[in-house]
C-alpha cells in the first residue's frame, strides 16, 4: 500500500494520563475515502485515540502519519496539518460570540487567508449542504442542539479538509435531534471524504462504515467490515458489548 492510498496511519501509539493507559499501543490504517467507525465502552480510549490523530492529545510514543506526512508537535507544521482536518466535537464547541456565518468564516480567513467574500460564499454553500442556510445570521445559542451540531459540521467542511474527525457527535443531543445530524453524516459519507467517527450509533456504523473497530482498555480488539463485524464478532468482549448495546 502506498502512502497515497492510506490517509491516516498510526503506529504503536501510546497515551497515558497519570496511571491510566488511555491508548495502549494502537496501530491502524485508514484508507483514502474510507468511513472508519470506532466503537467501544466509555473509557475505552476511543476519544483519546481520535484526538491523537490531530495531536489535540500529543501521544507519549508512536507515530501518526496523515497523507504520507508525519504529524509532529512542532507548532507551525502541526497547524498546517490541523488546517486540513475537520473536527466535530460532542459539545459542538461553536464560538458563542460569533454568528453562524462568522463561526464558519473565521478559520478560513485567519488560517487559510481566504478573502472575506469567498469565505462567505463557502460558508453559505456548506450551510446549504447541512440544511440550515437560513440560520446564517443567528447566534449559536439561538439554535437547537441538532442545528448547532450541523453548523459545527459545516464549519469543519469549510476548511476543505482531507479528513473529518467526529468525536461522539450525537452523544450530547436530545433523541429527536440525533437523526438530523446522522442524516448529514450519512450523506457526507457518500461523497467519498475520509471520515473517522467515534460513536455509539450502531445504526450509523451499519449503514455508513467501511470498517468498524472495537476498542477496549486502550487497545483495538477487533476490526472488520460492518456486515461481518455485527454478524460474526470474533472476540468475546465484542460480543458482550454488542449484546449490551443492541438490546438496550
Amino acid at each position, binding site marked *: 500500500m502506498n502512502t497515497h492510498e492510506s490517509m491516516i496511519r498510526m503506529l504503536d501509539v501510546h497515551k497515558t494520563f497519570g496511571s491510566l493507559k488511555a491508548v495502549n499501543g494502537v496501530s491502524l490504517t485508514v484508507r483514502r475515502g474510507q468511513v472508519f467507525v470506532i466503537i467501544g465502552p466509555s473509557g475505552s480510549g476511543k476519544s483519546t485515540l481520535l484526538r491523537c490523530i490531530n495531536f*489535540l492529545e500529543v501521544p507519549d510514543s508512536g507515530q501518526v502519519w496523515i497523507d504520507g506526512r508525519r504529524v509532529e508537535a512542532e507548532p507551525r507544521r502541526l497547524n498546517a496539518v490541523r488546517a486540513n482536518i475537520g473536527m466535530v466535537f460532542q*459539545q459542538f464547541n461553536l464560538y458563542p*460570540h460569533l454568528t453562524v456565518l462568522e463561526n464558519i468564516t473565521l478559520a478560513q480567513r485567519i488560517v487559510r487567508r481566504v478573502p472575506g467574500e469567498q469565505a462567505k460564499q463557502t460558508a453559505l454553500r456548506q450551510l446549504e449542504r447541512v440544511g440550515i442556510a437560513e440560520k446564517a445570521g443567528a447566534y449559536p445559542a439561538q439554535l437547537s442542539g441538532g442545528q448547532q451540531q450541523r453548523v459545527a459540521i459545516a464549519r469543519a467542511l469549510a476548511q476543505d479538509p482531507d479528513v473529518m474527525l467526529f468525536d461522539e457527535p450525537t452523544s450530547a443531543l436530545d433523541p429527536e435531534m440525533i437523526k438530523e445530524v446522522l442524516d448529514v453524516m450519512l450523506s457526507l459519507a457518500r461523497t467519498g471524504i475520509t471520515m473517522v467517527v467515534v460513536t455509539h450509533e450502531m445504526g450509523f456504523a451499519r449503514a455508513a462504515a467501511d470498517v468498524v473497530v472495537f476498542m477496549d482498555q486502550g487497545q483495538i480488539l477487533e476490526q472488520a467490515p460492518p456486515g461481518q463485524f455485527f454478524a460474526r464478532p470474533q472476540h468475546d468482549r465484542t460480543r458482550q458489548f454488542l449484546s449490551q448495546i443492541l438490546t438496550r
Partner: protein
Amino acid sequence: MNLEESVQMQARFIERRRRTRLSDFPWWILAVGLLAAAVAVLISTDPDFNQAFVIIRAGLGVTVTTSLAAFALALVLGLIAGLGLISANPVYRNAATIYVEIVRGIPMLVLIFFIALVMIPGAVGGINVLGELLVSRGMTAAGTPLAGLDISQVDMNFRAVLALAVTYGAFLAEVFRAGIQSVPGGQMEAARAQGMTYRQAMRFVILPQAVRNILPALGNDFISMIKDSSLVSVLAVRDITQIARLYAGRSFKFEEAFTILAVMYLTITLVLSIVMKRFEQRMRRHEHA
C-alpha cells in the same frame, strides 16, 4: 366570577403591585441625591463652601485624566501579565507571577512612593548609563539625549500615572486570568483543531468571550482607580485631594474643604456605578449565550 369580585381582585392586584414597587424603589439613590442636593444648596448659598468648591474643582481635570490614563495603561499591563499567569512558557509565567505577588504584598501608598521616587529615578539612571555607553561607542545622535535625561524632567503627574498603572495592572492581571479561565476549554480546542495558532485562538476566540465576562469587574476596578487616585496627592500632584489639603491647611476651613472633597468623589463614583449597572443590564438583555 361576578363583576364585584373581579373589581376587588383587580384592586388587590394593583395594591400588591404598588407595594412591591415601593419596596423595589432604590431609596438609597434618593437619600444620596438629597445629600448631594443639600451640599449643592450649601455651595450656592454659603460663601465659604462656594469658595472651597470653586478652588477644589480646579483639580477635577487632573483626577480624571490621571485615572483614565493610568487605567488604560493598567489594562495593557494587566492583559500582558494575565496572559503570562496562564502561559505554558515558564519564564513568562514566573515573571508575571512575581509582578503580581510583589504588588499585592505592598500597601498601595508605599508602592506609589516606591515607584515614583525609587524605581523611576533608578530607571532614568539606567537610561543615562545606556546613553553614555552609546556615546562612548560613537552613536552620539542616539546616546546624547539618553545620557542627558534628568530625573527632574520626569514630572510627578507622569510618575503618578505610572505608579497607579503598575499597581492596578497587577490586580487586572488576576481579573484577566479569571476571565480567560472562565471560557470553556472546548473553545480553545476547537480553535486549535482548526489550525489556529495559540495567539489567534486567544485573540479571536477566547479573549472576546473573556472580556465580555469581566466587563463588570473592570468597571468596578475603574471606580476603585478613581478613588485610589487620591493617593497620588502624596506626590504633590494637584488632583482634587491635594488641592483640598492645601486649601484646608491654608485657610483652616477643614469642614468645607473635606466635605466638598468627599461629595465630589461620591458623585463621580455613584454616577459611574449607575452607568455601569445600566450597561450591564443592557448587555444581559442582548446576550446571546
